[in-house]
């Protein structure tokens, strides 16, 4: 059994209430931080922990905090990003539903560390039930003296509010989220200035993912050094993985970073293998934006060494043979799934969610969707495959925010690894409407290579 730092008490009845949460050691981190540590010491512990942002980018949280400008007499804000919308990711919904006080406690400690007296949790609008849960938890915490004026007699004041979004994936991008919180369309801002200098209402602001903020609680309780002992290398601590698709046991799992991917997919402690006795064809390891990998490269590097669930290991091999940790949305595809259809589905998603601000993304995502649609529905040409690569290259890196990249990568990687399946759709337009390409050679195990791997100039 791996260590659980966030979900240890998830199955305790009533853990969503303040009373039970406190019986299980809840709000110790608030007492410890506010009564025995200075804000800078809290930041220092988070730095020592090596915690990396759990929303997708993986940027060290402590470092992000230390960038926060602290001009005299200007308010600072902490905003929690709970606009979880990345296809394949549902860990934040889970955490907020079942153990809301973990987020509230993390918000109090983090706000204290940053010197924020008003903090917001921006929750995607569709999560109305979770908004009610959080509002109830905030009321409980306030009644117990953990929020409001003069918290625990320490002189620190904090008000915490929940803000609903309106249903827009783009608001998961931190500057779009701030625009939305200011009551505007979710158009990402040009950076710099970064939110740490000019964020909400032009004031210094930190935006952190739900899971990152919840992870601050065990970091303060046990110390940053202890937290850093969990995990592997620069991937410290535990990570919530949202497992979906054709798995025996989809759901949210807390893993110690460094768990072998094979164990995660096939062991009974986690996903329990592929559903209905099928075989694994492909995975998207970190939410829909990260490159898709065929089954064999999911389990092993190109040189045959086993791949692990960590930031470094998942990206081993770059985009040629690797992928990314992303937000930890692990989607498994069985042998009956069509990669072209899924790529079209994701392209439609990004087209729908593009804010329309930058032409390469606004127009390019539409092109991707249209060309993929005709390939999927039997009207494709061979040249369409290269056209897709071309369009994706023209989006990537040419937009204000990473949504452009996120739209381009799934398409480019699908063609990189499954080109023969795309070609089959062109050659067999009728057959491809009623049947699928199947597993092909995508799961052929990779032999361990002893000689040096030749480097392509990719």
């Amino acid at each position, binding site marked *: 059994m791996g260590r659980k730092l966030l979900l240890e008490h998830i199955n305790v009845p009533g853990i969503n209430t303040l009373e039970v949460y406190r019986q299980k050691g809840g709000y110790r981190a608030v007492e410890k931080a506010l009564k025995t540590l200075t804000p800078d010491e809290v930041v220092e512990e988070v730095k020592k922990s090596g915690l990396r942002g759990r929303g997708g980018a993986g940027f060290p949280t402590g470092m992000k905090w230390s960038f926060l400008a602290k001009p005299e007499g200007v*308010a600072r804000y902490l905003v929690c990003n709970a606009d*979880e*919308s*990345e*296809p*394949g*990711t*549902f860990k*934040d*919904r889970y955490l907020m539903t079942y153990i809301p006080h973990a987020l509230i406690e993390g918000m109090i400690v983090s706000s204290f560390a940053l010197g924020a007296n*008003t903090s*917001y949790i921006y929750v*995607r*609008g*569709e*999560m*109305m*039930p979770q908004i009610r849960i959080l509002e109830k938890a905030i009321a409980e915490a306030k009644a117990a003296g953990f929020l409001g004026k003069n918290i625990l007699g320490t002189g620190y004041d904090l*008000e915490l*509010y929940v*803000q*609903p*979004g*309106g*249903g*827009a*994936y783009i608001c998961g991008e931190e500057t779009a989220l701030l625009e*939305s*919180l*200011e*009551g*505007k*369309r*979710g158009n990402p801002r040009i950076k710099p200035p970064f939110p740490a200098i000019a964020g909400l*209402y032009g004031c210094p602001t930190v935006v952190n993912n739900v899971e990152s903020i919840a992870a601050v609680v065990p970091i303060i309780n046990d110390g940053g050094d202890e937290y850093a002992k969990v995990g592997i290398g620069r991937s410290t601590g535990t990570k919530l993985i*949202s*497992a*979906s*698709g*054709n798995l025996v046991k*989809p*759901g*949210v799992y807390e893993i110690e970073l460094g768990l072998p991917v094979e164990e995660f997919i096939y062991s009974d402690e986690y996903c329990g293998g592929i559903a209905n006795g099928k075989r694994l064809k492909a995975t*998207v390891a970190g939410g*829909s934006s990260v490159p898709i990998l065929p089954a064999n490269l999911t389990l092993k590097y190109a040189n045959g060494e086993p791949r692990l669930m960590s930031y470094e290991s998942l990206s081993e091999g770059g985009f040629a043979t690797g992928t990314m940790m992303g937000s930890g*949305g692990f*989607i498994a*595809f069985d042998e009956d*799934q069509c990669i072209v*259809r*899924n790529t079209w*589905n*994701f392209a439609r*998603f990004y087209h*729908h*969610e593009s*804010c329309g601000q930058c032409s390469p993304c606004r127009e390019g995502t539409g092109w991707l969707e249209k060309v993929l649609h005709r390939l999927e529905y039997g009207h494709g040409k061979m040249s369409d495959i290269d056209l897709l690569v071309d369009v994706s290259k023209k989006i990537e890196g040419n937009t204000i925010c990473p949504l452009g990249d996120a739209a381009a990568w799934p398409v480019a990687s699908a063609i990189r690894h499954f080109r023969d399946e795309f070609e089959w759709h062109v050659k067999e337009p009728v057959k491809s409407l009623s049947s699928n390409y199947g597993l092909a050679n995508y799961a052929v195990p990779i032999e361990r290579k002893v000689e040096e791997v030749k480097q392509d100039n990719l």
Partner: protein
Amino acid sequence: MLKVEEQQPVEFSSTLIEKFDEIVKRYPAGKQKSALLPLLHLVQAEFGWTSVAAMDKVAEYLNIEPIEVYEVASFYSMYFLQPKGKYVLEVCRTGPCCLVGAEKIMDHIESKLGVKEGEVTADGLFSWRGVECLAACGFAPVLQIGPEYTFYENLTEQSVDTLIDNLRNK
């Protein structure tokens, strides 16, 4: 998309205005525009959709230009700019849900209700539409129904039938 001429004037009840007042308090002085998204949710929960007349009232309340409300309401997918059925079944149609049969569920809803995506049934009770990822991929296929956004997970054709029949008899 915004049809002004067909719209009836609306009145906001004092209960609704009280809720507005509570929300505006969350933001610093002069930053009341931040309340726009939550206010539009309240309006839609009250009236079933977000009409131009209602948006104008919201603009007046927040002391902002009407266009600032329209541009927001039309940007975000949750605000209905046309009247919908009393119950809007919003089915997730993104990748992970489709891996486990979301498309079949949408086909089934279409034939069960007898209306196309976005239309309203003759009795005014139901609409349905496909929406993008609802962040519940592990419990797919899923659908939600506003204004409370109650969630229905691991859908089957049978469970959808039961759900629709129960709502119809409510």
